[in-house]
């Protein structure tokens, strides 16, 4: 992290000017001073806690159908009741419970797909950036090819062949969304390739693997974490899209995209069936994006926007 940080925080405190303030404290101040990052982290943290505690918080079984309780409107509606705060769906399943369990699906897919694609993209990008020359030419070509493939179409076609399921969606998105990791890992590695600490590691006789994993990787990690948040958001939106089109997570699982798809036939008169899962998706992706933007600002305070 650079040391000239104090001028960029939205609410700079006097403390940040003093050299005695420890690094973590300065980071903390910057974190608290960045409104978007703070807000995003709080919302995201809340959603994560709700998802983890879903089995204890959900008022009903998310899979339990009840034909006599179909399409009950949410509590703010005049016909709503506290029994089903967000109402019920066409099979009489409690919407709030499905929403809570759905958060688990979105978060699992976002995190796992981003980890897989992060592994692929970082490996390719670091190799291209560190070795340069032919290796770089080949890997850059692979990245260009990957960018030219229409992600949504390829994902749809493949999941139609393989059969949609939670695991398949994770693997598919993991294999498709690595391009930005590769691009960022490549350019940050290029910047550090000739740095002194890399040269001294070489002089000390460290192996290439050691240099890449122990010396280089920690220094490009912060940039990769920013990409990670973006790709998590991307994966969550794509999963919802695949599930909405019927080729992602399969019923009866409470994926938010699937909930919107199932509610589509009723949306004209019962708007809330698509409004609730749609807003949930938007809030989750918004929170992840705010965290990502905030982390980027913390890494490079000059380019804040």
């Amino acid at each position, binding site marked *: 992290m650079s040391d000239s940080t104090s001028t960029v925080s939205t609410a700079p405190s006097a403390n940040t000017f003093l050299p005695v303030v420890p690094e973590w404290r300065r980071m903390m101040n910057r974190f608290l001073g960045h409104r978007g990052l703070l807000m995003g982290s709080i919302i995201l943290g809340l959603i994560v806690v709700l998802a983890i505690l879903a089995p204890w918080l959900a008022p009903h079984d998310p899979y339990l159908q009840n034909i006599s309780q179909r399409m009950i409107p949410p509590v703010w509606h005049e016909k709503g009741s506290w029994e089903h705060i967000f109402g019920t769906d066409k099979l009489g399943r409690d919407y709030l419970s499905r929403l809570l369990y759905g958060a688990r699906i979105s978060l699992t897919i976002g995190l796992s797909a981003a980890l897989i694609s992060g592994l692929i993209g970082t490996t390719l990008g670091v190799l291209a950036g560190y070795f340069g020359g032919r290796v770089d030419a080949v890997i850059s070509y692979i990245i260009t090819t990957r960018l030219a493939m*229409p992600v949504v179409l390829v994902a749809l076609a493949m999941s139609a062949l393989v059969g949609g399921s939670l695991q398949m969606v994770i693997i598919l998105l993991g294999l498709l969304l690595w391009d930005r990791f590769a691009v960022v890992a490549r350019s940050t590695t290029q910047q550090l390739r000739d740095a002194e600490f890399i040269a001294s590691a070489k002089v000390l006789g460290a192996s290439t693997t050691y240099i890449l994993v122990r010396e280089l990787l920690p220094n490009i990690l912060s940039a990769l974490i920013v990409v990670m948040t973006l790709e998590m958001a991307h994966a969550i*939106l794509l999963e919802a*899209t695949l599930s909405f089109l019927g080729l992602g997570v399969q019923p009866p699982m409470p994926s938010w995209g699937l909930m*919107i798809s199932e509610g589509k036939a009723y*949306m*004209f008169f019962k*708007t809330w069936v698509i409004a609730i899962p*749609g807003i949930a998706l938007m809030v989750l*992706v*918004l929170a992840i994006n705010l965290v990502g933007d905030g982390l980027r600002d913390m890494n490079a305070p000059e380019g804040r926007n």
Partner: protein
Amino acid sequence: MLVFIFRRLLVALSVAITVSIVSFMLLHLSGDLAISIAGPESTAEQVEQIRIDFGLDKPMVYQYFDWLWSAVQLDFGRSYYFQDTVMSLISDRLPVTLTLGGLALGLATVIAIPLGVIAAIKQDTWIDRLALTIAVIGQAMPSFWFGLTLIVVFAVNLHWLPAGGNETWQHFVLPAIALGYYAMPAMMRLTRTGMLEVLNSDYIRTARSKGLNESSVIFKHALRNAVIPVVALAAVELGFMLGGSVVIESVFSLKGLGQLAWDAITRNDYPVVQAVVLIIAVFYILLTFLADVINAMLDPRLRVR
């Protein structure tokens, strides 16, 4: 300049071929096409018959070159499901998708560039924050859900515009808004960052100190440079939109390429899937190639690379 164009063209061509190989392999490795085409209730003999009829018993390399040789002559074979050649299906549907993509990109550009410029000039004021909020929300909203919301509000409740179909120009308004809002944030942010960077540069200070009026500084000197990366992004976004139109077309029942692809995917109509993936990839490659050339014309420094 000619050498530059020729070199880029060569790369573009080889990327297109690589994409066709990869998409061919992906489809053929994801499952047994003969079984998928025959359907779940067919006997082993029927599957074998289909395998022979469609040439699926031949080695994959042979199948690929056979396919590529026809594809180069714009012959993509016959659709398994629709009683028509793939080429005539595509030429029927392509204008709809291109219209949608063009309108959406136009809409996104018309909003993104002025908004980005204003946000940069009025940095850190409420206008800037409003512009960023609009961008952040656009990035978080699933496009299919935004499309459904537009239908509920403008078609069902206000009766201003039709909900689906592609008979008149009115049918394209809502889909173009849904698709355009998805592309707008990235362009807006890039315009804003570009303008901020340029406005702080030395030559703008010189222009101002020469006593040029502010509008001439902004439009003649600053915008022209800030807009260069936006041109490249716009081309890339159009490519993404053609690929992503499958979702919007299915929401608005637009009979375009995306809908064709989706119908083909759900009916295991692989010649169509394969052709649509390739055509969208070729469009993307062409667009990025054009963006490179336009960029090189706007900015001579890029030509030497």
